[in-house]
């Protein structure tokens, strides 16, 4: 005879033990942190067969305490610390911190430095999109396209090495300008050749990944979100554009040289995974086009950093009291920084708002209901989840 759950629980409680009831026919799966598909992030899934019934986000494996550490170091030193927050795109935290401190200081960044900063940010966007293509193709099973993307990204790494001195962690954009000058006209010609080379290889990616019948079958109609849901849940970046909202920080809150550049912004209506992938594919082309326009403009003459006598004694550099907010369009979304100063030589409070804090917690918990196990890493990748943003 089958004993029911209530009888078992009652019996256990009479004997001093506590039993928790389980829902019918479901089992729990820890989609854990040591998984290549989730990039050091974990989800607790309740499954019925191979369909997800409930998902709980479990962040916290990459917490290093950046916001508290930044309060004990002088203003300039924080650049070497804060850029380790976002690994695929390490120029973005440098740029937002420098822009916020520039606003507090009240000085005007020279034009050559603005040109160089724009070129560096656009190159970072292209490398981050190639890195994303590698991740998407590995999770779908089309390994060839991923290896190609990693190889083309190497050419941009070599260009970064000549400009800034390191391949991945550049430590190049500082409050007041940039640290070094462009190493001559040869570098500009190499950048132009690289942009031309990658542009000619994009149809190959289309053949194998973006126009493939398998990709369409796996991605169409999965993980749908509509416009109202996206705006209420704080979704930003390409995910919002795939849901039908006309939003781009480069046009709504312009910074650096973007008002003088000409590019198009893709907006689709469906809001499913396929729309998010196609929006990002279109943006790679537009970023390469922006780099061509910048190279045609050429760098303006002048100094590459603000001339200020305070640079002689950097550890005692003081910033006037106040607060400032700066944000930038990154490939994952809308990256923002809020900096508070009280007049000393160290910050009083630094807060970095990564875009994944809204994508990775509430949105993924609601989008995963009804999906299959094989769809879970694919939906995570199309949202552009970057777990260090959540944990900081």
């Amino acid at each position, binding site marked *: 005879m089958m004993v029911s759950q209530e009888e078992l629980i009652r019996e256990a409680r009479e004997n001093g033990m506590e039993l928790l009831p389980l829902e019918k026919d479901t089992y729990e799966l820890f989609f854990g942190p040591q998984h290549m598909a989730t990039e050091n992030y974990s989800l607790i899934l309740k499954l019925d067969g191979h369909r997800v019934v409930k998902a709980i986000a479990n962040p916290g494996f990459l917490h290093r305490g950046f916001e508290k550490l930044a309060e004990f170091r002088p203003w300039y030193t924080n650049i070497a610390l804060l850029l380790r927050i976002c690994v695929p795109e390490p120029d973005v935290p440098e740029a937002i911190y420098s822009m916020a401190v520039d606003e507090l200081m009240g000085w005007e960044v020279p034009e050559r430095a603005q040109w160089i900063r724009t070129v560096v940010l656009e190159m970072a966007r292209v490398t981050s999109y190639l890195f994303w293509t590698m991740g998407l193709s590995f999770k779908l099973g089309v390994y060839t396209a991923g290896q190609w993307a990693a190889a083309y990204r190497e050419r941009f790494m070599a260009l970064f090495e000549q400009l800034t001195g390191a391949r991945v962690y550049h430590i190049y954009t500082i409050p007041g300008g940039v640290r070094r000058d462009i190493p001559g006209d040869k570098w500009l010609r190499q950048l132009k050749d690289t942009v031309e080379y990658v542009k000619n290889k994009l149809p190959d990616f289309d053949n194998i990944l973006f126009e493939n019948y398998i990709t369409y079958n796996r991605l169409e109609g999965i993980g749908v979100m509509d416009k109202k849901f996206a705006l209420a849940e704080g979704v930003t970046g390409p995910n919002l554009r795939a849901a039908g909202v006309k939003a781009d920080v480069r046009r709504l809150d312009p910074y650096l040289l973007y008002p003088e550049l000409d590019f198009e912004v893709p907006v689709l209506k469906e809001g499913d995974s396929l729309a998010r992938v196609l929006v990002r594919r279109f943006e790679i082309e537009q970023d390469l086009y922006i780099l061509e326009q910048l190279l045609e403009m050429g760098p303006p003459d002048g100094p590459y950093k603000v001339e200020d006598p305070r640079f002689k004694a950097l550890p005692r550099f003081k910033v006037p009291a106040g607060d400032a907010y700066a944000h930038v369009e990154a490939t994952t979304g809308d990256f923002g920084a809020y900096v508070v100063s009280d007049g000393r030589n160290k910050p009083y409070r630094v807060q970095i708002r990564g875009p994944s804090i*809204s994508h990775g917690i509430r949105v993924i918990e609601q989008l995963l209901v009804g999906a299959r196990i094989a769809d879970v890493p694919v939906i995570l990748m199309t949202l552009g989840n970057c777990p260090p943003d959540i944990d900081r």
Partner: protein
Amino acid sequence: MTLEKEENVVRQILEKAPYAEGKVRRARRIEFHIPAERIREFLTLLKESNFETMMQITAVDWIKDGEIELVYQMWSYTHAVHAFVKTRIPREVEKAKVPSVKDIYPVAETYERDAHEFYKVYFEGNEKLEMPWILEDEDREAGVCHRKDFDMLSYVKRKYKILDRFEEDKEDYVI
């Protein structure tokens, strides 16, 4: 460059909320100061005036004034303007309580979990505050938080047992 659009936005909101103070800081940045009891009213008013998303809730610990300042960062896609909404609440752990706004902006649930874990601010009405967020269990029970009176350096030295180059009795690490 004129600041007409931002001044219009500030004026429209201040007409409906006489208890608030507002001003324009520069192009595309405006600021409001409100008392702590009126948070829910004011944010409902902002939502009706087309401020669609909340970007972050920041908690700043002003230890000399004895208060914690909560800054709600709001962004509007229609007006293209970023608004700081600032309130102040007392600093002691029993008195730092604020009503939750998660039914007006659903994303505020995550931001409130963050402010609760690191600054011990309690948001009434949010059931997810007891769920573990980022810190590990042993750290949370030892009272680790990012307030200014918690001595993080001696806690780290005790836990990981390394003799560091930082001096315990010096508050200022620039020698």
